[in-house]
């Protein structure tokens, strides 16, 4: 598979007995190995059933094996193992790309079918079969996410301020630890918590928009705390000390000096935290439920939200199913766009709002 001076006599500098340092594969050897493997795989594919996935798998396996054998003959086992690991590690990354690419492709392909004006302008009231949209669900998602942010950001930010600026001793350690633990609460448990909380006051079977916001807050607060804490720690102490030296009270130092300095990082963190909860389905499923009409009041009755809407359109599509299933995929596409959009916004915030250090 490669030009080689294999079996060359061992030179005098061999440090280990099992190594054959005589040869070194040329730089193009890995490429050659995989091109050859592709050819072999293609022939095998012709003989058996051809399939792109199998072709790729065969190519990678044959190429890796070929390269390993060639390297072992020419360069000795140590380098051969090194090359093998390089192949394995690179394929690990390649494998991770398969779901990402196929998911994006599938969601876009099926999502664009109903990506039209009616989808954004109409709800499901009186819709039978074709047409209809997710206006009510989009509004519900926006309202509940906004409420969640209003609850989570003050609590999360104040907690981070406490941890960085005031906290000490056991309370600080306890809060840090439990915030970490809280990031691991399963989302459905957060939903059950909100349900259990409201049931005590409103009786069984209650479904309210605000319950969803409470459930999502349980998930969002720890994310806000963690990111705000990191950012606040980055604010140089010199700034604080300068403010104290001028006789500025501590709280005004925090509000007027520390927070403005950290505003870019805080904005990024909050945006990412919103992105984290906006696609949550399970907690909303058990607390907010679903409805066909537009309900903009989170304190009364069920609300539709985009993820739950997508879930029910897919699993309970009605007659004939195609229309609802198309709506479900479009809802999924919008969800992905929302999350990705928020991620981009987060990056933009950190780029444009970052304090320009003159250093």
């Amino acid at each position, binding site marked *: 598979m490669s030009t080689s001076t294999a079996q060359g006599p061992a030179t005098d500098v061999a440090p280990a007995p099992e190594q054959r340092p005589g040869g070194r594969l040329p730089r193009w050897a890995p490429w050659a190995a995989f091109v050859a493997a592709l050819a072999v795989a293609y022939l095998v594919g012709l003989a058996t059933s051809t399939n792109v996935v199998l072709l790729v798998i065969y190519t990678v396996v044959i190429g890796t094996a070929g390269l390993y054998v060639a390297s072992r003959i020419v360069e000795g086992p140590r380098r051969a193992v090194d090359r093998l690991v390089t192949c394995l590690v690179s394929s690990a990354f390649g494998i991770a790309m398969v779901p990402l690419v196929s998911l994006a492709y599938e969601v876009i392909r099926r999502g664009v079918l109903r990506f039209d004006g009616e989808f954004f302008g109409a709800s499901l009231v*009186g819709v*039978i079969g074709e047409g209809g949209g997710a206006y009510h669900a*989009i509004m519900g998602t926006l309202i509940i996410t906004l409420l969640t942010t209003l609850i989570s950001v003050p609590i999360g930010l104040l907690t981070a301020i406490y941890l960085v600026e005031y906290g000490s001793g056991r309370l600080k350690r306890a809060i840090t630890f439990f915030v970490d633990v809280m990031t691991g609460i399963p989302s459905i448990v957060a939903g059950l918590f909100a349900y259990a909380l409201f049931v005590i006051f409103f009786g069984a*079977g209650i479904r309210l928009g605000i319950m969803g916001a409470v459930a999502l807050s349980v998930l969002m607060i720890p994310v806000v705390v963690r990111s705000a804490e990191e950012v606040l720690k980055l604010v140089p102490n010199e700034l604080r000390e300068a403010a104290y030296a001028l006789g500025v009270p501590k709280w005004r130092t925090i509000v007027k000096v520390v927070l403005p300095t950290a505003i870019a990082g805080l904005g990024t963190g909050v945006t990412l935290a919103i992105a984290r909860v906006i696609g949550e389905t399970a907690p909303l499923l058990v607390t907010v439920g679903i409805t066909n009409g537009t309900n903009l009041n989170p304190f009364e009755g069920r609300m539709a939200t985009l993820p739950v809407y997508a879930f029910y359109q897919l699993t309970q599509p009605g007659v*004939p*199913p195609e229309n609802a299933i198309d709506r479900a995929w479009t809802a999924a596409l919008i969800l992905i766009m929302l999350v990705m959009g928020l991620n981009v916004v987060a990056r933009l915030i950190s780029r444009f709002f970052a304090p320009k250090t003159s250093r």
Partner: protein
Amino acid sequence: MKLSTKTRATTLSVALASTLALTACGASNETDNASSSGEDGGLSGTLVGAGASSQQAAMQGWSAGYNSVQPDVTVNYDPVGSGGGREQFLAGGTDFAGSDAALDEEELAEAEERCGASGIFELPNYIAPIAVVYNLEGVEDLNLSPETVAGIFNQQITTWNDPAIAADNPDATLPDQAITPVNRSDESGTTENFTEYLAAAAGEAWPHEPSGDWPVSGGEAAQGTSGVVSAVEAGAGSIGYADLSQAGDLGVANIGVGEEFVEPTAESAAAVVENSETLEGRGEYDFAIELARDTTESGNYPIVLISYHVGCIEYEDQETADLVKDFMTYVVSEDGQQAAAEAAGSAPISDALREQAQSAIDAITAA
């Protein structure tokens, strides 16, 4: 630096706010009730119901159709499930309930508190035939006796060329292929009715109690009716149970009733409901029925799901009474049943059932 940050922050929030404002212009298909009052039918108000999700699609058809008659009445139906629907109705939270099962003794007692001495109405207004759907190449017609259906779903009959199936289908060529039974993974009225049928009609072959949760382990389980249908579509040799309206291109088995095999249709499903006995000892207008699952009558298809509308005969205020009366009249009318059939694929009720229901509806009054 600080100033510019602020300006940019303001620009950003203004941009965000205007995006929100743009979207907040209301759904194009929802009309404002207050704007056009007092035309057509003359009634106005909001009617609130909750209950079985099985009749949600039908309810969408009804509320859409009813809206063209009474544009100022909004019908809200909350698909919380049968149990939740009954609970909310009895607690006075809703005006009527949709339920896949009739009220039990305890609930009837509660209903007396809710509605007073004149009692309640229970009308079987939604009838949906449940089809046994299968995916088997080369077999166009499939006849299955109750015992065979039970054997298949109980996983005693595991291949398509089993003698029991062959006995039901002497003319078909059955392949030597494994049967994959598909059931619902979520708790559902469909499962409850299907197992009820098996328990009643299949005798020894079905040793399980009727239940909303599928009692047999080891089958393919799928979420929702559509999940079952797509699972059966995807798997050659699969068989499942699903609303007839959603069977699509799948094969639909004829079910053994007495000496013959009956095809599930709207007529055969309505027929079995009509021929079932009304439960005794309940209110005058309580038309809860005991479905004749083990019927042997010709042309009756026994695997149906019925969903009731439950409400009071006597409401506290005139407005609610009028609304319930008018809406229920529409629901049982030919138009209403047709609307449900289009929206949900249900079987329209027969004229006899309609007359019976109308007698209850006419009795609705305000205290």
